[in-house]
């Protein structure tokens, strides 16, 4: 009887150890893949903008955000998000900008984000985002399919009007942290 009990206990312990390892594998490893491209840190280049204090009452990451008029100026070469690190494994590299929440129903503009892997003939796509719809959230832009062995991956807001959306120079678009994975 004791032998049976001991065997059951050993099996239970094995099961528990296996469960813990499975948990660590599925959660801790994945959690480590999330990063944020933000101002004032060493893990990013190219977040070129003069940070504006987040307006009182707004929800912005680290209290800063930047804005420009939707479609109202030449291409925004002075701002882009570029991770300093790239994956060493063959896996997608995701991007998701945070859209600030101004705490009122006033509307934001719609913009295109250009995502490119920097290779000649490589992946490049434009994702239109109506910022009004996603205030206070990170919104997924999609991924470049191979986040490794690439000279750079870049997300660049493009100052052009998005078909179907108003773009008369009165609406603003906002830039804040970019969530990415590698």
């Amino acid at each position: 009887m004791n032998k049976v009990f001991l065997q059951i206990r050993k099996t239970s312990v094995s099961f528990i150890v296996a469960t813990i390892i499975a948990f660590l594998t599925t959660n801790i490893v994945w959690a480590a893949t999330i990063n944020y491209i933000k101002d004032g840190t060493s893990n990013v280049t190219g977040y070129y903008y003069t940070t504006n204090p987040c307006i009182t009452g707004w929800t912005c990451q680290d209290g800063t955000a930047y804005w420009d008029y939707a479609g109202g100026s030449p291409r925004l070469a002075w701002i882009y998000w570029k991770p300093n690190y790239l994956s060493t494994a063959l896996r997608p590299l995701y991007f998701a900008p945070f859209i600030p929440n101004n705490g009122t129903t006033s509307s934001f503009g719609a913009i295109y984000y250009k995502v490119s892997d920097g290779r000649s003939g490589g992946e490049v796509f434009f994702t239109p985002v109506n910022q009004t719809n996603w205030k206070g959230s990170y919104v997924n832009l999609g991924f470049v399919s191979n986040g490794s062995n690439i000279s750079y991956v870049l997300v660049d807001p493009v100052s052009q009007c998005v078909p179907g959306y108003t773009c008369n120079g009165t609406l603003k678009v906002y830039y804040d942290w970019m969530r990415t994975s590698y």
Partner: protein
Amino acid sequence: MKHKDWLVSTMAGLIIGLLFSITGITNSFNSVQSSNAISSSANAVAQMRSSDTKWSSLSAEGTTIWYTDKGTENVKMSVQINQPNKVKLQILQTDENGDLVFDYVWVTDGDKIYEQNNIKKTYTLYDVPAFARLSHADLVLTTPKEDTPSITRHPIAMLMPSPLADYIYPIGLSQRTGTYSLEANNQTLGRPVFVLDFMGDNASEHQKLEVDQSTGIIIKAQTFGEKDKLFEETTLTNILVDAENPIETFSTQPPDGFTYVPLEEFSRR
């Protein structure tokens, strides 16, 4: 029991509890308990969330009116879709002076994306990005887990340049943080709809949505802006569901007289 046995039991309990919290099983129990109170609006949001699985093809016309400080801007659209990945979208847009600002065609056959500017007589053609070749469910599954999940729109909505994108594929809108309230069960254009009022967290956004009860597609949307004044109104009309569009609808061949330009140049509108 010995100390070791207690330790083993405690660990097992902790682990099982952890597993429950991770998998959301307890949340499921809680949601079942409270389902009677929220069933109506929850049903409507559930329809939005699974909308792309409830229809196979769509043909419709759409209008969007923007009410801005400078006046009204009008957008006329037509859209044909064969799921999962064939779309044709045409847009005619005038500004507040009535001047044409977009006469534009966007087509994907699931392999290529074709864009045509009828004002400049130009077109461009490029590959569908890898993420948009996945279903929404697969895209979510392949996205790394995050403490606060990013909103993941339908892959086609992430590419389609039109307000219609998130109304035809409302799975992204269903993930917003805020409160959906069911105001009524109505008929719009002869179709039963849920009339939903959405208020974003911290009063960040206010919308009224009419959600088609059978497909989950939003067939009318009103977005309110500053001081709760109507800012955008989009309506779908002439809706035809599950009558497959002819395959030639999704041709990516340019008409005579149009000039090819690379995507980056084409995008400088």
